[in-house]
């Protein structure tokens, strides 16, 4: 209830702040003497319209989105499993922790380059490179949650001899929901940024590849058109998929209706 009224009251300032940013952009674009370094918002909008009309937008945004989805799913699944194991077992944690810390600190670019060299310039390498960048972050977040799992529920599950799958689904995962949601939302934005780098370096389609081409011709209008479109897509995913899901899994926290 309070969440609803919060989001409603936050809508107005949110819209105003976006309008203010558009205004500053417009003024700045009119003041610059070289229009190609900062095109006006309507020029970018026209380019987006043109890209959408030719179908180029949908194909490349679709390719990028597919890579985002694949590496997101891979990173969440592996990160969840590792985080659970490490949070539940001290020994596993001791063994795997150094690897996680190293992976956390290897620059994304190094992982991408090595992945392309070792696996090849293909889709597998691209998705693997992005997932590898994200796995340690998910692992660390889930591990914190797994360390704080309630022992009384664990004992109840043992006393009633619940099957491992039912335990995972009804006892363990609901307790990790806040960490999973946080990892998912932090992850999706990190992942799409890395996907663009991966495409920039070694793919022949997708938003990152298009930006690569536009960069060689210093086409700022095009770069902004692609970037803003994809930001809008990712915001829509957050707003219409991740947030409603989060609300649904948190329904039980509400007090007596």
């Amino acid at each position, binding site marked *: 209830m309070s969440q609803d009224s919060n989001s409603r009251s936050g809508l107005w300032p949110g819209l105003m702040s976006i309008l203010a940013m558009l205004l500053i952009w417009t003024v700045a674009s009119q003041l610059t003497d070289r229009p190609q370094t900062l095109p006006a918002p309507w020029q970018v909008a026209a380019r987006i319209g043109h890209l959408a009309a030719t179908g180029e937008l949908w194909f490349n945004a679709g390719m990028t989105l597919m890579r985002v989805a694949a590496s997101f799913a891979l990173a969440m699944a592996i990160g969840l499993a590792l985080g659970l194991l490490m949070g539940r077992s001290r020994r596993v944690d001791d063994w795997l922790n150094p690897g996680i810390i190293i992976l956390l600190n290897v620059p994304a670019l190094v992982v991408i380059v090595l992945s392309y060299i070792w696996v090849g310039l293909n889709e597998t390498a691209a998705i693997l490179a992005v997932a590898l960048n994200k796995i340690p972050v998910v692992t660390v977040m889930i591990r914190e949650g797994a360390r704080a799992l309630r022992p009384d529920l664990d004992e109840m599950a043992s006393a009633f001899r619940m099957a491992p799958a039912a335990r995972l689904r009804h006892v363990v995962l609901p307790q990790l929901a806040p960490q999973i949601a946080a990892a998912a939302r932090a992850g999706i934005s990190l992942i799409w940024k890395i996907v663009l780098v991966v495409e920039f370096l070694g793919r022949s389609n997708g938003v990152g590849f298009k930006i690569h081409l536009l960069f060689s011709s210093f086409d700022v209008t095009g770069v902004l058109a692609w970037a803003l479109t994809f930001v809008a897509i990712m915001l829509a995913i957050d707003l219409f998929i991740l947030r409603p899901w989060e609300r649904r*899994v948190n329904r039980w*926290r509400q007090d007596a209706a």
Partner: protein
Amino acid sequence: MRLDLQAKSFAGKLILGPIEISVGRGERVAILGPSGIGKSTLLRILAGLDRNFQGRRDGDERLAMVFQEPVLLPWRDALANITIPTGCDRKTAIEWMGRAGLAGHEAKFPRQMSLGQQRRLALARAFAAGPDILLADEPYASLDAETATRMVSLTGELLDRSGAGLILVTHDPNEGAALEARALRLSGTPARLQKD
């Protein structure tokens, strides 16, 4: 079910000495004693939750446990709190909720129920598992006197109906007497059982 315990220690300290106990379907036993004596530890060994002891535990009876706290899944509604852990069908679960006086509360989440209702739900869950022996660890603690009395008589009714045996851990001899349970007293260090 039979337990032949030689010794149980925690961190090198001997808690429980030699204890022999056997309970079957229809039999009711109350384990009495002051707090901290090892009653809950003994119950956990009987329940098979603690296997780190010297001795033998035999028997393949179906057990169900009622804990000191209700220990419900807060993210599942009342009905699912019975069907998920016990694996029983919805119809059975609704029947046991009705017997526990919880008819009409099926769709509520545990947070939306009073502590008394949550405890009755935990009791209904234990019976829905269809146990041969019900294990209960101070199930009436932290309830007001009136609610506790009603819960004790509810437990008695449900035991009569299902024919299950009972091992009740409590500090209150009256609870055991009200359920017509054979009283066993834990005392001494390390603790051993004495017939009352």
